[in-house]
């Protein structure tokens, strides 16, 4: 039996039929037909954000925590352009976000109509695919394909631009056809030859290292990576987005590499004769100066995206394929071995961590308080800057995919809205959004969203009165000229009160356990301000463009 439906209804129905259950969005003129239809689809819970950027980050957080697409909606013009930072963030970090934007009606396109912008043109380089829907009869197929494209292979954001008259256009509804073969094709399968060559290199290496990234989380390859590590004894390095892909407490786990990696981790890279990289892209924050990166090492690179193999570092063996499937075959192909002498050599260069901040308000103490209050059963979402590095280096992640951050794009303001999406994907456990005082103020309006929608996100603000990471660079590389980095904050406790949520200010370590415990136990959203040392630094630090062999380890 055929049905006549408007484009807006087809949009909603196709999303609901695809299993979408939450949408982050903000209404406006060109998306009003969609919002008119939306209440008829109770399965689609709509979260009204305070700025469209937050909708994109929240959809990203939802996608990363759930492994399913995160959906955000905005109107044309400014609504659509406000999504851009969120889409670029999702693009850099391979997150399956589907953005739906209203567009001015077809006859108005290209006339500089009110709230018209070429969002297709704007988002071309920051989406995996985008669509301008010209006919409502195409909508079901386009939405279905968009969801498939966003998730298939290496995930990424997709944008669907729907003119207002297409939303109103009534057509005979035909459920979406089966997704085309291109977007449902089996993942590439590596040849046995490459897997065997990788196994041979691992068997022959004296100082092999396993480096794992986001691809391991995306492919759910935790058990396989752990099996590979334990069968070979290889020490394991987790990149920023690979954190929690391997248990932090495991005796073979070394830590994070790169610009703020610990000395023993970077030294291990520089001494290694083999690096087995799984699901990472050897970006510049990991490698430092490429010419001096891992000078003794051959590289085995396993990645789903063929274009990443050999892109930054030359590879001895490149294997294109799903991290889980390839690693499983590698485990089967490899002979058991140990790396005891090599691991002992690395341990010899491990440095004690500096926890001597004023008032005991060290990142270690703050993160230990959060860990104690949650029992480690929480997801941490971080923003960008010094606190992000402290969390990455210090929080003892034991469960997979419990560390979510903006890695590639380094988007300040990410944590607060992304945490809303993480909560909706994981309603059963606490979600802590940790920000600095700079990043928090970028998207703190989302506290209103949390209150209105009942999203019990725990907000932590590391307040040092500076844009701390930029100030740190100014200290080391710009003659201590702290140009435009001191930043004023409102009274966060009063701010919390204004939003009707509990707020806590912690100035001394002795107050940490109580404040964090209460904030974590409260039913709704809460805000905790941690007043930390003003000019604390993240050490060690590789100067931009420097070699991993030359860390700065203390202030001069």
């Amino acid at each position, binding site marked *: 039996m055929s049905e006549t439906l408007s484009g807006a209804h087809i949009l909603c129905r196709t999303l609901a039929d695809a299993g979408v259950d939450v949408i982050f969005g903000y209404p406006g003129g060109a998306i009003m037909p969609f919002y008119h239809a939306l209440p008829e689809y109770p399965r689609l819970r709509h979260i009204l954000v305070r700025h469209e950027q937050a909708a994109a980050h929240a959809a990203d957080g939802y996608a990363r925590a759930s492994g399913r697409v995160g959906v955000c909606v905005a109107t044309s013009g400014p609504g659509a352009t406000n999504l851009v930072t969120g889409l670029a963030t999702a693009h850099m970090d391979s997150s399956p976000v589907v953005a739906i934007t209203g567009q001015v009606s077809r006859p108005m396109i290209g006339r500089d109509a009110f709230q018209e912008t070429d969002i*297709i043109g704007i988002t*071309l380089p920051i989406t*995996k695919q985008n669509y301008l829907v010209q006919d409502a009869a195409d909508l079901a197929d386009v939405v279905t394909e968009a969801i498939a*494209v966003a998730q298939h292979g290496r995930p990424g954001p997709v944008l669907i631009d729907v003119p207002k008259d297409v939303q109103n256009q009534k057509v005979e509804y035909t459920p979406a056809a089966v997704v085309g073969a291109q977007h449902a094709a089996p993942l590439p399968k590596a040849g046995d030859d490459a897997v065997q060559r990788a196994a041979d290199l691992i068997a022959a290496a004296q100082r092999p290292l396993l480096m794992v990234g986001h691809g391991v989380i995306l492919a759910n390859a935790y058990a396989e990576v752990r099996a590979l590590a334990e069968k070979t004894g290889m020490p394991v390095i987790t990149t920023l987005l690979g954190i929690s892909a391997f248990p932090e407490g495991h005796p073979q786990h070394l830590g994070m590499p790169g610009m703020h990696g610990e000395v023993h981790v970077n030294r291990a890279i520089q001494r290694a004769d083999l690096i087995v990289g799984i699901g990472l892209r050897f970006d510049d924050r990991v490698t430092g100066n490429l010419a001096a990166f891992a000078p003794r090492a051959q590289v085995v690179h396993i990645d789903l995206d063929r274009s990443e193999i*050999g*892109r930054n570092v030359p590879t001895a063996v490149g294997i294109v394929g799903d991290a889980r499937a390839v690693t499983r075959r590698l485990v089967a192909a490899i002979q058991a071995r140990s790396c005891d002498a090599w691991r002992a050599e690395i341990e010899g260069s491990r440095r004690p961590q500096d926890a001597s901040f004023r008032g005991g308000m060290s990142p270690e103490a703050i993160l230990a308080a959060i860990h104690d209050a949650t029992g480690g059963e929480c997801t941490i979402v971080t923003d960008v800057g010094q606190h992000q590095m402290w969390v990455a280096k210090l929080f003892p992640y034991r469960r997979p995919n419990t560390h979510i951050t903006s890695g590639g794009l380094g988007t300040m303001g990410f944590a607060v809205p992304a945490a809303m999406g993480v909560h909706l994907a994981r309603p059963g456990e606490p979600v802590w959004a940790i920000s600095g005082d700079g990043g928090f103020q970028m998207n703190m309006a989302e506290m209103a969203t949390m209150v209105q929608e009942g999203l019990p996100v725990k907000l932590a603000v590391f307040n040092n009165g500076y844009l701390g990471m930029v100030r740190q660079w100014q200290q080391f590389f710009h003659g201590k000229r702290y140009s435009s980095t001191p930043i004023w904050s409102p009274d966060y406790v009063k701010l919390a009160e204004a939003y009707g949520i509990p707020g806590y200010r912690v100035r001394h370590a002795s107050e940490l356990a109580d404040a964090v415990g209460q904030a974590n136990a409260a039913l709704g959203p809460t805000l905790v301000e941690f007043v930390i040392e003003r000019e604390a630094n993240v050490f060690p630090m590789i100067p931009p463009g420097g070699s991993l062999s030359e860390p700065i380890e203390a202030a001069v």
Partner: protein
Amino acid sequence: MITTHTVDVLLDGTVLMLNRAVGVLRRRNVTVEQLTVRPCGPPEGGGGVSRMTFVLHTDAATADRVVQQFHKIVGVRAVEITTVHDPNTEEQP
């Protein structure tokens, strides 16, 4: 070594698709010496397919990287480097 590479891309024949394809070249910041686009029916008949041919003046690794980026685009059906011209070697008639 810098050489001249002629690259052939078979793609869906829409203006948006061409925009996307040219965007790949722009983002990689490579020098494009020639660029032609012409309609081209797929082997099994039907329409809506274009052939984009461009000439890159770059090293082999970069040319290969550009090809890999094209392979990732939804709507690109085939990509190949058809000729490599080494400026130090001259063909005599």
